[in-house]
């Protein structure tokens, strides 16, 4: 299992994502934003940070990078793609995921451990779902533009199709996201984006290991 972690100028959490992929027992390497080839990666992480500075709108420039063109093709062919924080924003900008991420409702950056409730349809191994709906994961969130938004009709549709992957636990929505949505997947289930950072929840030393399951589940998310 080889993970590719896309690195843009301005990425911040790409080394953390590499580390998390390795801790979950796989190999991982960085993919420079100018590369048009994913180098045989079996799954891709689009990591957190501020791609190209994100001065315009989070993810608005990264979507045009050669590496993201390759990621879009990879996703279309069923390859598993995990977008975290800025990566989630990029995937929404790219159109691989529904909805958009707006400025937090209090207009401030927030860094806080939050409880996430797993929701919707997760990949399974045999009859066993890798993440059980209703399972609570303790994972840190840190972002200034994390308020998930979509038109009401689209929210109804993605809920009906089991595309909501994570919600913030009651009372823990840190940014005003619609319907407490913290993460969504595409209809085929092979592309997942979430604002909180599972790569920062892979080691008890730094607070939690609940994020490892997200990497394991996505490794098996080939559509």
């Amino acid at each position: 299992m080889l993970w590719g972690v896309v690195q843009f100028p301005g990425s911040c959490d790409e080394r953390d994502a590499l580390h998390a992929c390795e801790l979950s027992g796989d190999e991982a390497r960085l993919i420079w934003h100018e590369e048009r080839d994913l180098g045989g990666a079996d799954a891709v992480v689009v990591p957190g940070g501020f791609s190209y500075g994100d001065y315009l709108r989070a993810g608005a420039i990264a979507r045009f990078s050669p590496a993201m063109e390759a990621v879009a093709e990879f996703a279309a062919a069923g390859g598993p793609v995990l977008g975290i924080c800025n990566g989630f924003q990029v995937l929404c900008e790219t159109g691989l995921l529904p909805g958009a991420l707006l400025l937090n409702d209090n207009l401030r950056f927030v860094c806080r451990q939050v409880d996430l409730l797993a929701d919707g349809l997760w990949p399974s191994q045999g009859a066993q779902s890798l993440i059980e709906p209703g399972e609570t994961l303790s994972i840190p969130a840190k972002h200034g533009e994390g308020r998930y938004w979509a038109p009401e009709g689209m929210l109804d549709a993605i809920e009906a199709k089991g595309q909501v992957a994570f919600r913030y636990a009651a009372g823990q929505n840190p940014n005003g996201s619609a319907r407490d949505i913290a993460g969504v997947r595409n209809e085929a289930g092979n592309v997942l984006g979430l604002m909180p950072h599972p790569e920062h929840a892979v080691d008890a030393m730094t607070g939690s290991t609940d994020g490892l399951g997200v990497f394991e589940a996505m490794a098996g998310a080939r559509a």
Partner: protein
Amino acid sequence: MSAPAASSPHRELGLTDAEYELICEKLGREPNGVELAMFSLLWSEHCAYKHSRKLLRRLPTEGERVVMGPGENAGAVDVGEGYAVAFKVESHNHPSAVEPFQGAATGVGGILRDVFALGARPIAILDSLRFGELDSVRSRHLLDGAVRGIGHYGNSIGVPNVGGEIYFEAPYEHNCLVNAMCVGIAKQDEMVRAAAAGVGNAVVLMGASTGRDGIGGASVLASAELGDGDDAKRPTVQIGDPFEESKVLECCLELLAKGLLVSLQDLGAAGLTSSASEMASAGGVGIEIDVAQVPLREADMEPFEIMVSESQERMLAVVEPGRVAEVIAVCEKWQTGSAQIGTVTDNGLVRVLRGGEVVGEMPVEALVDGCPLYDLAPAEPEGWIYGNEDVLAERVAAVAGPDADAADPASTLLALLSSPSVASKRWAFEQYDSIVGSRTARRPESADAAVLAIPEADTAIAVSIDGNGRRVACDPYAGTVEAVLECTQNLACAGAEPLGLTNCLNFGNPEKPAPAWQLDRAVQGLADVCEALGVPVVGGNVSLYNEGPEGPIYPTPVVGMVGELPSPELAGPSAFVREGDAIALLGPFEPSLAGSELMKLRGELDAGLAQPDIAAVAAACAAVRGAVRAGKIASAHDVSDGGLACALAEAAIGSGFGCQVDLQHLRERGCSPEEALFGEGVGGFLISGEREKLEALAGEGVAVLPLGKVGGAAVEVAAGDRSLTVPVADAERAWHSLSGRAESIAV
């Protein structure tokens, strides 16, 4: 280049007549405009330390673990396995007082560059902030801007902000303090010094292009030269671009890992002028800069403007001529600028060219070391020179209701917990990414010091930044000793032993007798305590002339320390852990109301503090450090602002458990019930754990007083006629009141 205008441009640039004459003498002629601009900056207090350099010679700078000391971009200490930890604290006070967001943001940017200029990857930021009282609109504006600015820069560049402190005191109303500290990790064999070397080597400017931003001290000259008043209106506060910095950072680390640089220096205050001159001075060489080769944001910039511009996100490197192309290729990969702008020479001169034309030529020695150093004329002021205002009743009413009795100790505790300087700073630190980099083993407020894993060297470090200006104002010597001891205590609570110290000395005008006295006594205190503890001072920064219309700020030495502990998992929490655990007070804590938060609220501050017993505090730190590492105690928290009652409440709030405590044993040391509850001083550790293990920590020179046990839903403290009971939920509400008050500002 025209000569400076007829009036005294040197005075307007801050040089005295005697200094100007000395410059003429060293040059053998009058300086031209370019030269005068460069001299005025390098001979400023900021660059030349002309009022502080003599004092700073008192500080101990040597130690077995020191890899780089003062004089380099940052200090560095050995952490084993071929790695070093680099760190430095620096001020950005005046820019932040003018424009808090950009001032604080570029303060972070500047200290990051100091650290990666050594070849160290920044792994943590800490900050120490001072504002006027929170009920002032101006203070809330400055607080909001500075916190947003620090967050903006650090979050965007992906360096975690792991700790810090904020105090609110009236003397900072017009002159806030923004001190930022950066910690980095480097392979020792990839580190570089700032000294230029190798005659004939190329001088390469990397990073952002050069604009007119930050031309502060020289703006008067700009008007005189151009005859155009518009230039005076240009912003003198620099604008930060963390994206550019993140590219420059990665670019520099790649260049160093490939061994392509001879030396590296960041461009900070005084821009190219100070970087080029200081690199030449450190290497004992000359340097030639052609301003026509400098990439500009505005085409029509004058040579002096290019030389003094403080545009951010720029680095200056010395490169062997055969490797310039490789360096430029790496810069292009990272999409950041690069240009060869000069060469290293053997003539001992800083020579500035525009195309072929020489527009300035000065001996390096005259520029960098020629500035006269001044002796201070210190005089101890009589008594308390700052104000006093009784706000206790008002604060009690705000937190406990209008009917609450201000004399009731439970109300006093709530008022202290809600005092902005004591209250939780969660509102601020949640705006900072504290976890990027996957090293943060103890996040803000979970322990007394931040703890970072250093897997490269199979070890961990704890970092803390401390300073209490009010106590230094009461007694500059004792207050400064206390700042270092408190920092040492914070490290001990995390199980860490100090490796080195950096400091930022924030003081008033050194040409006035009282601030001069404060500075002199504070530096002596710093020297003595570091000597006694065996902790080397590996770097620092001085910020003088911090004054408002009502006088100087509180004298504020801020100290940052890095300590080592064998493993990040060993660090304990500061909050209680288990119901039923015993609670004890360890160390030579002799609480006094002098200089305390309570005396501040009562408006009864006065000069004078007890002199700390450094050896006794050091012994207590060693005992706690050993106990934490051996897992003998469940929690450790140093007793600080607001005294033992506040320390107990904080340990309770963090755990959700109450406590039952009797201060009888402490009162037997001769203090009153009120002193036992709210008195302050160094040397006290509030520890919890199994009773036998706590009592076994008592030994030679280390006293352990049993206090009580963890449990219940209230903080219950028996202290004679001042006994108090406060539900943990009430204490928590008071302690978390900062967010509501700071948020009310959002305009």
